[in-house]
């Protein structure tokens, strides 16, 4: 690997790949896809779609995946993956719901604020486990988080006695129904998470380091970045956000079964991918993640409003993911390959 003519030639090729300026649409391709979808939906449903009540419902229902996708993004940007986010969410939901429940439950009774803290702590600990193994070994994140996913599911059932949470603390119910200026409180919480995610990724040094680690781990290491620590932090962030998502789920539905959330894992990844965040790491903005969530939510809502069979919906979602990711990849490849 010394001086090679390939470098010279690659040099020329690189110089030749001047990006066409203003490549891509302002705000990103996915924004326009979303806008097109919104218009389409409005037309196909004869305006039902854009009724404020419907829009609010859409936002309300996508808030959980919205936060889960942010959690996933932290892992993906660092060139990792977190298959355990869904399980973490449900675990946190059950713990918070069960511990603060007014009824008898398997868990020790805790006042609500403490229960919430416990839930967040849970996410933190799980993130620590994932992050430590990811940061210090070469085990692929897929395997690590697959293993923790299985373990968390198991522990969830054990810790909660497999009984559902169904008499949550009244404050939880109130929070779920609260509105501030017509915006449901859960959606506001989602917005807060978006802001937090943005802040962490764009405004902190660890965020900058995470992009570097995801973009080229060796270079990052050779530039003095403590790669294991950065990876650890990214999974911790994923875990904590996942816990928050779980609590949002609790708030939104009021009851939690241990078997809930089976689709969370895949939904979070689908949202991230559809938004155009590269699974290879080093790229991706919170904006993209949000767009991915919204696009899938709009498609879902559209299918509901037009009466598409619930089962066919799953199939259509799959197709949407394929198309969206494929299109995104085509566009970005045209820029640099």
């Amino acid at each position, binding site marked *: *690997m*010394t001086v090679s003519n390939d470098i010279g030639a690659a040099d020329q090729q690189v110089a030749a790949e001047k990006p066409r300026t203003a490549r891509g649409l302002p705000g990103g391709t996915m924004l326009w896809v979303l806008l097109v979808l919104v218009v389409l939906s409005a037309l196909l449903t004869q305006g039902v779609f854009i009724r404020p009540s419907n829009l609010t419902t859409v936002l309300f229902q996508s808030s959980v995946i919205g936060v889960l996708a942010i959690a996933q993004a932290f892992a993906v940007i660092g060139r990792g*993956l977190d298959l355990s986010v869904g399980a973490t969410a449900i675990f946190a939901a059950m713990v918070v719901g069960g511990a603060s429940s007014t009824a008898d439950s398997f868990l020790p009774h805790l006042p609500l604020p403490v229960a919430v803290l416990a839930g967040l702590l849970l996410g933190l600990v799980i993130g620590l486990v994932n992050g430590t*193994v990811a940061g210090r*070994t*070469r*085990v*692929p994140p*897929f*395997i*690590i988080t*697959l*293993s*923790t*996913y*299985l*373990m968390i*599911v*198991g*522990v*969830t*059932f*054990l810790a909660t006695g*497999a009984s559902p949470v169904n008499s949550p603390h009244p404050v939880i119910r109130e929070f779920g129904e609260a509105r501030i200026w017509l915006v449901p409180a859960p959606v506001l919480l989602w917005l807060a998470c978006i802001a937090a995610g943005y802040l962490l990724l764009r405004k902190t040094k660890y965020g900058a380091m995470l992009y570097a680690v995801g973009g080229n781990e060796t270079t990052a290491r050779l530039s003095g970045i403590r790669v294991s620590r950065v990876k650890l932090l990214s999974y911790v962030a994923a875990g904590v956000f996942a816990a928050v998502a779980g609590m949002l789920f609790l708030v939104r539905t009021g009851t939690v079964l241990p078997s809930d959330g*089976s689709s969370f894992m*895949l939904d979070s*990844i*689908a949202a991230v*991918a559809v938004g155009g965040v590269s*699974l*290879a790491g080093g790229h991706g903005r919170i904006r993209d993640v949000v767009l991915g969530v919204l696009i899938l939510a709009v498609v879902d809502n559209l299918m509901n409003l037009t009466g598409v*069979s*619930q*089962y*066919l*919906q*799953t*199939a*259509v*979602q*799959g*197709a949407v*993911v*394929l198309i969206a*990711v*494929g299109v995104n*990849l*085509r566009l970005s*490849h045209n820029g640099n390959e």
Partner: protein
Amino acid sequence: MSGERVANPVTHLPGEQSALWARLTGGLSGRAVEGLFLLVVLIGFIASPKFLTTFNLDSLLHQAAILGVLAVGQYVVVVAGGFDLSVGAVVALTGMVTARTAGEIGLLSVPLAMVVGGVMGLLSGLAVTIGRIPPFVATLAVLGIARGLAFTVGNQGIVITEPAILDVNDAALGPIPAVALVWIVVAGLVYAFLHLTRSGTYVFAIGGNADSARLAGVPVARVKVGVYVLSGCLAGLAGTLFAARSGSGSPGIANGWELDSIAAVVIGGVSFFGGSGRLPRAMLGVLIYLMLTNIMNLVNVDAYVQNVLKGALILAAVTVPLLIRRRRPAVRSSL
């Protein structure tokens, strides 16, 4: 994950290693799977008198046959550098197809199921090659499509009454269930394919170093699509076998089987990065995985504790080989 180049340019090769250590670790990791298999059998023997009974082993074999057929497909895809997350959903879909059509076309519903599975596999393969979508996302999406289609065929289970199909599950050659024979035959055919044909070599080549393979003129895209189609077909076959076993097709079953098949394959020593791994060992991985579950059931380990242990096992199965490999002396770089 597929799509990247496996970082092993030949210019950074292991130099001389301490001969003893190399032999030891090579031998050990070479036999680790077999050793683990014997260990698990031993554990089973000790843990429960019911483990080695005909009834239990028969049941185990039935399960292993189904997961085994699935794992053969997963093995080929993983060796080629990818993985297939859609197989569980395909099993459900093809099970429904079998149940729906068994009454009319009898045993022909089996090849039909395999065709349906193959079409799903084709979708995955095209997404990965032409769409350049990472296997994770691509097969995830196909999972959604297959699951959705399964429910569209029928949103509840369909009972199978066609004897031709039900007999598949009950038939046996002496002590060996017919389904196990199917598994063995399938594994044998795939093994022969991988070792006796060009395309078989290409599967390993693509998983090992796709760029080199391409430069050598290997039709990378075609082979990749092929492995996904194979995985889909075998998932279809597994779906039929399961439908025969459970006496019905059901759209919601096989949730998570893809992870089971990946776990089995990984436990069987197949490198998650692709390019290496022996089929017989992968099949042992299936048995190990199922035996462990079986033992835990016999010992009345809580289903949820089982989950925890399974997770730990998978992690160990991948981590330990990596730790062993790291102990080897520094590679001799070309510089």
